[in-house]
């Protein structure tokens, strides 16, 4: 809602407040003023001029040379507007004048003719093109004849004004009108509200002689009323009215249309004027539209309607889409002489449906959708009649034709000072409360220790006690609410085990050198089939995506993590180590969801480029499979599940077949790791990238091995190193397992310290060197005992993996 500060003064006395002050009061009171627009800030030396002479420029067809009297001087001004005539009062920017945007006007020469200033259009004064009345859109603005020559033209037009742009919350549709804002202002300042003048004459003829009204849908349309105004002369509306309309962002059209718009802004009551002679009958019937029924709206579009829509008809055909837009056939035109003025109350939901389905958002539909004041309909109609009489020469016929199904009584809320104080933690007296309700013009009375408040139709947002608490608090001031701490039971705050383990996990990955990334959940269809943890039964698509790039919920964190790596590579950052913890979304087969999709917490990482470098000492190491595996092993250790994890060669098609592994937790599939398949690397323009993705719901639900102290050894350990020669295809992991099993309880630790292939070994063989540590926590081991255990290890190695000791 755009509120002209000058206009607002008509309804509430705020002479003592600047526009800025008024805005501040409204904002502090809960009606937020988002912005202030000074309509002509900095515009100077623009005066009313009288065009004494106007003759064609000798050198240019489209220019005129005018002599303009500006009281201080007679100036010769070259003007390019086609509507310039001698005898007009025009907006004259004298040399030295400043126009919006800081444009300075000087004396110039145009085609050999000196021009001492400029004759201005409204656009040149800063009025938006789309808000300028049609007759002035392509030319200069012409002031009324009674404008005083030499006076400030900006003030004369009424552009010395500031517009308050309100950012209204949905509960305050009452402020979609000048009067509503005035009520609010009056409550805040404890002042009176001044209602507009609705007085007009009435002719002997009755409106009911010309029209009858029938409402078939009283639920959708609790009130429908019409007045008839005859002998109208359609023409421009007065300057001040046009100016107020443009301040509110509405373009002036003609006196009849402008008056309906003006009253809409004044009262928040949408009105519609039908051309009585073009209505096609003398009856109005309000009903639901038929399925597929068609009508052409004012904008010239043919609309196909449904039974969800409500229409105003002439008994046969629709003449308006109720509350949204009038029909083209009965539109007021230049030759219109009699109008049927509609003032109705339509239910918000019905109008909203029509507005949504047709895509028409009009000043009218916006107000009906949010809820207008059902008690102000008739007053608004009388106001419009009064204005039509004054500014369109209309003759208002006697009475109105109305169908009224509105509830007879206003809602009442019972409360008490004690209740309201209890909610707010304040200590206001009953009198304080009553005074607040009086300022808000909510009729209230103290009754039997309580307060009874009547809610006028103006404020449909007030429904129950808490709403009154809010009114009391915002008018009294939130700064007077004390600061206390809850007096109830103290309960411990804590993170759950799972939340703590998630944090440990993050900390571990950070200290391993990985940056945490956060990518979007919505992704493209293309991405949603890539690098999935499992083959998923279905995915979750957005019904009306904003773009193909964000059309479906991710099923893997990796595609966007790889996008991130690529994004950085494109900026010459080639080394990346990133992880993300987030959800993937699992749909149902066939694509239709019957219940909320499963959301699985997944951890993913991508590592590429140099991993460990210390260049001036000549060290650099690229990320490889064992880097990412090391991170995973460390992570599993941190999470207390390391002893339950197995890496098994993976068959994931998007990974390098020789450098990838599936990860099992106690026999259950928990994720994968490895180098991306070269074809995948190529797609993302990467070189040797390693990734993992883990099912964290599974891993974090697994009971961690608890930390329990083991005696620090008091007896010496015995270390034996062995170098074994085995076939190339024997995995080191298998050899290690044989050693571990064969070593028995005395084998305390085992570590691989060399892998060798090549010279001195026969083809197809490799050498693995292990260090075995034997220890008994209770005593010193003898050489004999160690040898017995060690021999057993060697024997088993020979039996199970045909290992020979390397000579």
């Amino acid at each position, binding site marked *: 809602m755009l509120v002209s500060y000058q206009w607002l003064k008509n309804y509430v006395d705020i002479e003592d407040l600047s526009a800025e002050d008024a805005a501040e009061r409204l904002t502090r009171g809960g009606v937020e003023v988002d912005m202030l627009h000074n309509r002509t800030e900095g515009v100077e030396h623009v005066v009313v001029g009288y065009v004494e002479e106007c003759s064609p420029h000798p050198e240019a067809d489209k220019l005129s040379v005018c002599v303009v009297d500006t009281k201080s001087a007679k100036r010769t001004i070259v003007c390019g507007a086609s509507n310039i005539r001698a005898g007009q009062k025009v907006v004259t920017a004298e040399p030295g004048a400043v126009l919006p945007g800081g444009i300075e006007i000087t004396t110039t020469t145009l085609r050999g003719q000196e021009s001492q200033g400029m004759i201005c259009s409204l656009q040149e004064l800063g009025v938006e093109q789309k808000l300028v009345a049609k007759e002035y859109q392509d030319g200069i603005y012409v002031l009324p004849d009674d404008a005083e020559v030499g006076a400030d033209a900006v003030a004369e037009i009424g552009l010395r004004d500031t517009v308050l742009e309100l950012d209204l919350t*949905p509960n305050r549709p009452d402020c979609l009108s000048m009067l509503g804002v005035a009520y609010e202002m009056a409550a805040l300042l404890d002042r009176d509200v001044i209602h507009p003048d609705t007085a007009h004459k009435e002719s002997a003829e009755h409106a009911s002689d010309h029209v009858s009204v029938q409402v078939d849908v009283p639920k959708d349309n609790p009130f429908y009323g019409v007045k008839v105004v005859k002998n109208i002369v359609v023409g421009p509306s007065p300057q001040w009215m046009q100016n107020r309309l443009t301040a509110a962002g509405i373009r002036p059209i003609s006196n009849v249309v402008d008056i309906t718009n003006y009253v809409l802004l004044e009262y928040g009551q949408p009105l519609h004027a039908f051309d009585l002679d073009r209505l096609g009958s003398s009856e109005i019937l309000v009903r639901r539209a038929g399925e597929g029924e068609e009508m052409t709206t004012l904008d010239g579009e043919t609309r196909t309607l449904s039974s969800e829509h409500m229409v105003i008809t002439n008994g046969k055909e629709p003449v308006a889409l109720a509350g949204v837009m009038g029909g083209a056939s009965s539109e007021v035109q230049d030759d219109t002489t009699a109008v049927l003025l509609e003032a109705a109350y339509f239910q918000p939901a019905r109008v909203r449906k029509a507005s949504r389905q047709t895509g028409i958002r009009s000043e009218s539909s916006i107000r009906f959708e949010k809820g207008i004041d059902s008690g102000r309909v008739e007053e608004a109609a009388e106001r419009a009649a009064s204005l039509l009489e004054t500014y369109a020469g209309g003759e208002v016929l006697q009475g109105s034709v109305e169908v009224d199904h509105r509830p007879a009584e206003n809602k009442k809320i019972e409360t008490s000072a004690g209740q309201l104080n209890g909610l707010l933690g304040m200590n206001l007296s009953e009198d304080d409360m009553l005074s607040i309700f009086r300022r808000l013009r909510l009729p209230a009375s103290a009754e039997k220790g309580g307060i009874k408040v009547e809610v006028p139709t103006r404020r449909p947002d007030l429904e129950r006690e808490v709403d009154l608490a809010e009114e009391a*608090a915002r008018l009294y001031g939130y700064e007077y609410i004390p600061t206390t701490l*809850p007096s109830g039971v103290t309960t411990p705050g804590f*993170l759950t085990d799972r939340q703590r383990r998630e944090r440990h996990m993050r900390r571990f990955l950070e200290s391993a050198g990985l940056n945490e990334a956060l990518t979007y959940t919505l992704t493209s269809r293309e991405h949603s089939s890539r690098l999935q943890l499992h083959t998923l039964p279905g995915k979750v698509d957005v019904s009306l995506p904003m773009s193909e790039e964000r059309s479906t919920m991710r099923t893997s964190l990796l595609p966007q993590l790889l996008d991130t790596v690529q994004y950085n590579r494109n900026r010459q950052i080639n080394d990346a180590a990133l992880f993300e913890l987030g959800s993937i979304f699992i749909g149902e087969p066939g694509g239709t969801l019957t219940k909320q999709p499963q959301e699985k917490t997944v951890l993913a990482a991508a590592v590429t480029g140099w991993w460990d470098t210390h260049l001036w000492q000549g060290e650099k190491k690229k990320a490889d499979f064992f880097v990412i595996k090391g991170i995973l092993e460390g992570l599993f250790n941190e999470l207390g599940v390391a002893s339950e994890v197995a890496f098994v060669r993976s068959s994931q098609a998007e990974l390098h077949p020789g450098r990838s592994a599936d990860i099992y937790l106690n026999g259950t599939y928990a994720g994968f790791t490895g180098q991306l398949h070269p074809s995948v690397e190529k797609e993302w323009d990467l070189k040797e990238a390693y990734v993992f993705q883990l099912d964290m719901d599974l891993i974090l639900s697994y009971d961690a091995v608890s930390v329990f102290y083991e005696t620090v050894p008091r007896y010496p350990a015995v270390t034996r190193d062995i170098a074994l020669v085995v076939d190339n295809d024997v995995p080191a992991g298998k050899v290690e397992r044989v050693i571990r099993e064969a070593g028995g309880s005395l084998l305390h630790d085992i570590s691989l310290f060399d892998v060798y292939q090549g010279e001195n070994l026969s083809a197809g063989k490799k050498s693995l060197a292990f260090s075995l540590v034997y220890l008994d926590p209770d005593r010193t081991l003898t050489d004999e005992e160690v040898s017995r255990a060690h021999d057993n290890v060697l024997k088993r190695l020979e039996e199970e993996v045909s290992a020979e000791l390397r000579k």
Partner: protein
Amino acid sequence: MIDRLQELGREALEEIKQADSVKALESVRVKYLGKKGPITEVLRGMGQLSEEERPKVGQKANDVREEIKEKLEEKTEQLEKAAIDEKLKAESIDITLPGREVKQGARHPLTAVVEEIEDIFVGLGFQVTKGPEVETDQYNFEKLNLPAEHPARDMQDSFYVTTDMLLRTQTSPVQARTMETFEGQGPVKIVCPGKVYRRDDDDATHSHQFMQIEGLYVDKNVQMSDLKGVLEAFVQKYFGADRSIRLRPSFFPFTEPSVEVDVSCGICGGKGCRVCKYSGWIEVLGAGMIHPNVLEMSGFDPEIYTGFAFGMGVERFAMLKYGIDDIRHFYTNDIRFLNQFKRA
């Protein structure tokens, strides 16, 4: 003989003086003090001396020996120290060369903010709960006092996945879900961080995906003044003890009264500056007393229980804390951006 000994002593000392290595000293030692050395040689001829002279010569020989020994030790020590000094000098390095980097990744700034806020509320007796990102219309709207035709639904155009399921537009549905698990028995004290989605075009200040933290406190006799107290405690912990808060009336369908909460500007101290748009205050939270309809729909009797709720945008807190000017940075994950939050 005494003269001879004296002379030997002088010679030995001179040789010690000339020696430039431990090895050379060793040969001096062998030469003068060895069993075949000249001093032993002299002492062998003692038989020819008189009774009175013998002890004198013996004494002299001992003195000379002792002196040589002493000087040898002294010189050895000197040479060893010189050798060590030489070695250390050779081992000297340029200590201005850079050290070896200890790898350390950065926490995402949004995670840093969420964890800090969680910790503050845990300290105030709250627990942390989470809920689904794909919500039903019922939990995202209806149970929050936003029935199908409510005009406030316009405020947050959303991504639907079916006619009655959507990507949640707020973390508030977690309120309703959590309250239900309490089966009408308070107190309930929770904070719920999470991702939310709205149909916005991404630009410097809008993001179709962002993070919120929702808070909820339900108990008997909870008053609006308690909301003020808890939020002030939180704001002072997060932004600094010298900050104050201000409540401004606002509207949320699920709270009544509803307020926006401003914190005094930390840059200008309330005097007005560019960051606070010259108002001295910065909007940081939405809050209010839980609407009785919401309590009722989640199984709490609004005649017995009251409560307050609050919500904040994580990106906004991060932007204020770290001076970030474009919300898209959080989701672009430029490594040069992320690296700046290692200490966060």
